[in-house]
């Protein structure tokens, strides 16, 4: 789960990381009030989970209340690379003497926690030369030690007079990373002010979804309105769904098999509309839930249901599909590929059913070819009734 800048800063503050004081606003009036309370000049910052806010005009300095309100008016509702701005963060403008970069990263490759520090902050870190970034791995069983801090600062190019403050902040960021079950904590820029204090001027925080059960404060920060409506609907139903932009709806049992199905459909010339893993996936109720999510995407013109029956038997899945079709109205063709345990029986059940939209198939490649063809035919016809 990715957090907004201000959410990250609020969490930083509770873990002792120095951040500017600030307020969140959802209307221009609120932004004006926040600015007046904080004192001028202030910065009005768009809150969206994407980089490049400044370049897109989503970060503006205001020298008085009228200007703060006007900036908020312009930024709220703005579209930044496909995301709509619903909130702005208002904070006092900082006196910036230097911009650094700091990060704590879950390094899955090294199986350790990686700390990064560089004097080259304020820009995209991918564009900073390797030798300008200090990197230190920390074993989570040992934790962050003073010598880690020294190794970081000595290779980073930061000013000596603020080294102790920066090391202290790295230690706090590490503690926050562990306490919050984070996958990433990034501060860019970490600034040195004119009076030589350090502050986290931005916050990019990503929390492990698997740990939200023990991070109730973070879980509460989730904003459903910021998510894709189909993905939101899937999440509420406990379904693993990722939206893509094609017209072949795809569902199956098992993440790897579904990923592979997307690839095979693309190889046959189709464009997948989504990824959807139904898990065990035999029961009519589960299939109804999944199909409703999938068909709520109106671009879907044909569906491929790819099942490999293991412990779940294909005849059970076939019966589940037929029951599901009794419960919802599906007007697009559904290619059902059943393979594995009791597959022949499953395909026989489907073939005998009076369901004109069903097209049984035996192999993955056959099924992919068929669904791509059907999706093309449907688009030639031009329109369809909304399913689900």
């Amino acid at each position, binding site marked *: 789960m990715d957090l907004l800048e201000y959410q990250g800063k609020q969490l930083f503050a509770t873990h002792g990381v120095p951040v500017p004081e600030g307020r969140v606003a959802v209307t221009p009036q609120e932004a004006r009030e926040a600015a007046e309370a904080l004192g001028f000049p202030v910065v009005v910052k768009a809150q969206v989970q994407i980089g490049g806010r400044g370049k897109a005009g989503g970060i503006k300095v205001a020298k008085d209340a009228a200007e703060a309100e006007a900036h908020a008016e312009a930024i709220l509702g703005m579209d930044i690379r496909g995301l709509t701005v619903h909130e702005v963060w208002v904070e006092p403008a900082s006196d910036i003497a230097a911009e650094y970069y700091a990060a704590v990263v879950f390094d899955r490759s090294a199986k350790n926690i990686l700390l990064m520090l560089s004097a080259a902050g304020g820009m995209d870190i991918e564009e900073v030369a390797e030798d300008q970034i200090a990197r230190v791995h920390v074993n989570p069983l040992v934790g962050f030690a003073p010598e880690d801090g020294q190794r970081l600062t000595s290779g980073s190019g930061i000013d000596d007079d603020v080294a102790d403050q920066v090391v202290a902040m790295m230690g706090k960021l590490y503690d926050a990373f562990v306490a919050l*079950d984070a996958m990433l904590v990034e501060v860019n820029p970490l600034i040195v002010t004119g009076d030589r204090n350090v502050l986290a001027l931005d916050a990019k925080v990503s929390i492990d979804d698997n740990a939200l059960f*023990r991070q109730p404060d973070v879980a509460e920060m989730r904003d459903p309105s910021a998510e894709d409506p189909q993905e939101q609907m899937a999440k509420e139903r406990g379904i693993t769904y990722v939206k893509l932009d094609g017209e072949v709806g795809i569902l199956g049992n098992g993440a790897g098999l579904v990923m*592979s199905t997307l690839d095979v459909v693309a*190889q046959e010339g189709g464009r997948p509309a989504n990824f959807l893993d139904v898990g065990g996936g035999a029961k009519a109720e589960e299939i109804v839930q999944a199909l409703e999510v999938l068909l709520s995407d109106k671009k879907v013109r044909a569906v491929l249901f790819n099942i490999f029956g293991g412990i779940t038997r294909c005849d059970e899945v076939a019966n589940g599909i037929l029951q599901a079709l009794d419960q919802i109205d599906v007007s697009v063709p559904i290619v059902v590929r059943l393979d594995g345990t009791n597959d022949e029986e499953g395909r026989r059940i489907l073939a005998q059913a009076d369901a004109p939209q069903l097209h049984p198939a035996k192999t*993955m490649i056959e099924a992919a070819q068929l669904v791509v063809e059907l999706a093309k035919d449907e688009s030639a016809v031009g329109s369809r009734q909304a399913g689900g």
Partner: protein
Amino acid sequence: MAILVDKDTKLLVQGLTGREGSFHGLRNREYGTDLVAGVTPGKAGQDVEGVPIFDTVEAAVAETGANTAMVFVPPRFAAAAITESADAGVGTIICITEGIPAQDMLRVYNYLQGTESRLIGPNCPGVLSPGKANVGIIPAHFFSEGSVGLLSRSGTLTYQIGNELVQLGVGNSSIVGIGGDPVIGSSFIDVIALFEQDDQTDLIVMVGEIGGDEEERTAEYIDQHVTKPVIAYIAGFTAPEGKRMGHAGAIISGSSGTAQAKAEALEAKGVPVGRNPTEVAKLAAEKVRG
């Protein structure tokens, strides 16, 4: 021979008294696996279909000589269950549980470095050595005994490829689900090293997917250390950046972890990469038949 599980496996199941744990544990026993104990704190003295339950792994090992543990406990307790088995000296720990917090696994991974225990998983379907033993949730009836070592980050995709191999008359030495999480106990490299040493295995099929750089590192390792032929498959060519494709570990971050990069790294080291599961099975069958 096979790897990891065989006729000498003496299995204990952590979470045998749960619904899933008892269902799969007893299926494993039905297959012929020597299921000797279950562990559930507070339930010592009970039994599940004749299998004695102990409060601790230590007690179960002392009483039954269990040498392999299957972890079937809920995510929030799984890390402690794994380290408990390691502390009790269990040599092979196979964790099926999906949804363990990533930092828990990071700590467990580093903890196990100082022990003799080997962890497979988590978030995996387990290990099957056809004709010998099954530990986990792999549907054993598709697979037959043979010479292909199969390892994979995905469950159903493994069954799919194993089934296609059987239809082409090719069996398996062992099938190892290594797991779909960002941090897993045994990597492709760890398991390929076991297959390389295994007399029964003539050919290795590895099934990878997007996320991380394990496949790239494995390509390098195969080039340097593996004499047996390897065939690969990678899932997720159509996956978008920044989206988790079902498995916690299946995510492309920036430009790293793409299927394209993994396939290219493997092909550069002479490992053929099949375009789909059917092609992988065909490539493997051709190679086995010579």
